[in-house]
């Protein structure tokens, strides 16, 4: 998923006409001050850390300012923060509005019903998990007619809106629906959505774009996620690679088999440190790249668990042997292999010629990987 920071989410919202406070992004205290002095951010204003984690208000990552100097000081204080493990690189400065009631609106996917889901609640401004089920109104939306008038009216009624704010909600929901579809969003969340005067204003914006739709949205390619360096390289090479806390490397194919392999290793007392899902490939070069990436993560042992389908056993064996040739002797790690399925015999033979024995039993091979990691220096 591509998670957008608040200011990026609001940029998307603005394009579709969602009502927002006036605001600008700053990456330094000086920039914050000059934005206020130039009148591009009206006073008084609010200064918010641009991080993905929630709970910014309580965590000191949101401050207020009445003058340009105060805005500078607030930006200075926030830009130095490390908020819940995330370094603050930017702040959003916005006009401080006279807020009435605070509401909640989101659009996401209901996987069970296989329909978009509109959720609204009059209890906005707090974490929605803490709101009782009965106070959240859920409406599924059929993608063919799209968001219907009666659905918007129901949302307005249950939010207790009438007149100007109800009309504002009608426009806002149309805009959100458009964002959801046209930007391939998997989550749009506004919390709080505030009543300001005779209308509504989105005070926050959470926008998550679906990875699989990235080919339609090159504009989001620049948005970095919270990946490690190796995870980022893997992503460029289209290899699913995740770093955990342990020391055993796991290379498997398919998400289910990878997860099952981790489960078995954990049960046997091992600690998986990196897992790498080869997915479906019949290119030995990709397998070699994956192995070299694994080597860079410096595992104590590596467990290769492949069930050949689209990814054939001999392809994996070839790629593996080539990678072992390229890894310097000092950086080698004990390798325990288990390859089954399509072209199993050929794969086992290639591995054997390189000095690797494939252990067919899952439990026994996993145990060997755990033992090897334990006795590794």
């Amino acid at each position, binding site marked *: 998923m591509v998670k957008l920071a608040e200011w990026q989410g609001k940029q998307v919202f603005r394009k579709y006409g969602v009502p927002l406070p006036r605001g600008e992004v700053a990456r330094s205290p000086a920039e914050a001050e000059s934005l206020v002095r130039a009148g591009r951010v009206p006073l008084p204003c609010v200064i918010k850390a641009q991080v993905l984690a929630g709970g910014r208000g309580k965590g000191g990552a949101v401050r207020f300012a009445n003058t340009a100097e105060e805005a500078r000081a607030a930006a200075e204080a926030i830009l130095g923060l490390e908020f819940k493990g995330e370094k603050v690189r930017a702040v959003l400065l916005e006009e401080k509005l006279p807020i009435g009631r605070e509401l909640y609106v989101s659009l*996401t996917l209901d996987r069970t019903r296989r329909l978009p*889901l509109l959720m609204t609640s009059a209890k906005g401004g707090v974490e929605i998990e803490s709101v009782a089920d009965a106070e959240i109104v859920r409406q599924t939306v059929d993608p063919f007619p799209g968001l219907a008038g009666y659905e918007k009216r129901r949302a307005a009624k249950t939010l207790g809106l009438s007149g100007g704010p109800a009309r504002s909600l009608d426009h806002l929901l149309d805009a959100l629906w458009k964002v959801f579809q046209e930007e391939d969003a998997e989550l749009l969340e506004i919390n709080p959505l505030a009543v300001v005067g005779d209308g509504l204003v989105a005070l926050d914006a*959470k926008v998550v774009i679906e990875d699989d739709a990235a080919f339609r949205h090159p504009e989001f390619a620049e948005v970095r996620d*919270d990946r490690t360096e190796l995870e980022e390289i893997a992503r460029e090479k289209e290899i699913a690679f995740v770093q955990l806390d342990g020391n055993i490397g796991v290379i498997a194919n*398919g998400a289910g088999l990878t997860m099952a392999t981790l489960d078995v290793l*954990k049960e046997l007392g091992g600690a998986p440190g990196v897992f790498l899902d080869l997915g479906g490939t019949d290119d030995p070069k990709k397998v070699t790249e994956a192995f070299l990436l694994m080597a860079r993560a410096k595992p104590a042992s590596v467990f290769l668990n492949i069930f050949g389908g689209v990814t054939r056993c001999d392809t994996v064996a070839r790629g593996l042997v080539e990678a072992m040739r390229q890894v310097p002797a000092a950086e080698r790690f004990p390798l325990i292999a288990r390859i089954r399925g399509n072209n199993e015999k050929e794969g086992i033979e290639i591995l054997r010629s390189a000095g690797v024995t494939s252990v067919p039993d899952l439990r026994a091979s996993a145990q060997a990987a755990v033992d090897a990691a334990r006795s590794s220096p």
Partner: protein
Amino acid sequence: MTVLVDRATRVVVQGITGHQGTVHARQMREFGTSVVAGVTPGKGGSAVEGVPVYDAVQEAVDATGANASCIFVPAPFAKDALIEAVDAGIRLAVVVTEHIPFHDMLVMYHYARGKGARIIGPNCPGIASPGNSKVGIIPNVVFRPGRVGVISRSGTLTYEIVNGIKEVGLGQSTCIGLGGDPVVGTSFVDALPFFESDPDTDALVMVGEIGGTAEEDGAEFIHQHFSKPVVAYIAGRSAPPGKRMGHAGAIITRGKGTAESKVAALEAAGVEVARFPYEIPAMVAEAARRGRR
């Protein structure tokens, strides 16, 4: 009787001239499937592995009587391919393609449903009934005709488990790989009734994964409507909780979706849950011997 595919299934392979399409058309034939046609726009009139290729699904259906499709076309074009198949009268479409945006799949699912067509997948290994027919990519070597049904959300893990069933001397009636995407054409709840009414299935293996509530929903269905013994496995017990953003997802599932929640729901429905994949074959052998749940 079989589930969804049988000897009368006549398959058109959409994207047959691509590498995967060609390889799997051949393997489906080797399994015994009637692969009657291929479709690749612009390549009509050629042949792949002796299978005639057409420009459009309607042409393939008119010429060969194809009644099921296996879709390999790349993700950006998969929605179009599915709609074409449904409009040509295809009523079973196995979508192997991975990385289809879920917004596209929402349209595909509701369009197919409106026309009375069933989708299996996307991002799935397909369906196979040993001795009858296979539509998809599950390796032929794992199968052996028998009386154990399999429904799975995984790909390779399914092969592993189906192979394990074979290795203890049992066989499979029908195996369906549902695919693990957020929106699937056929869910556990959709697939279970076929196995309940299938006289050739004595026991069922259900393979789930963390995320979503498909297993919990399946457990509820089993509790109410399924009489045969079920052995389940849930992958991902040890997975670290994902970093979350936004809270709407948590509100929909309200504590469901974890391995613990799925195991608890299944056990409450009388399903035996294996802790590890290698425990399944012995458990299902025992369950099949015992009969009822």
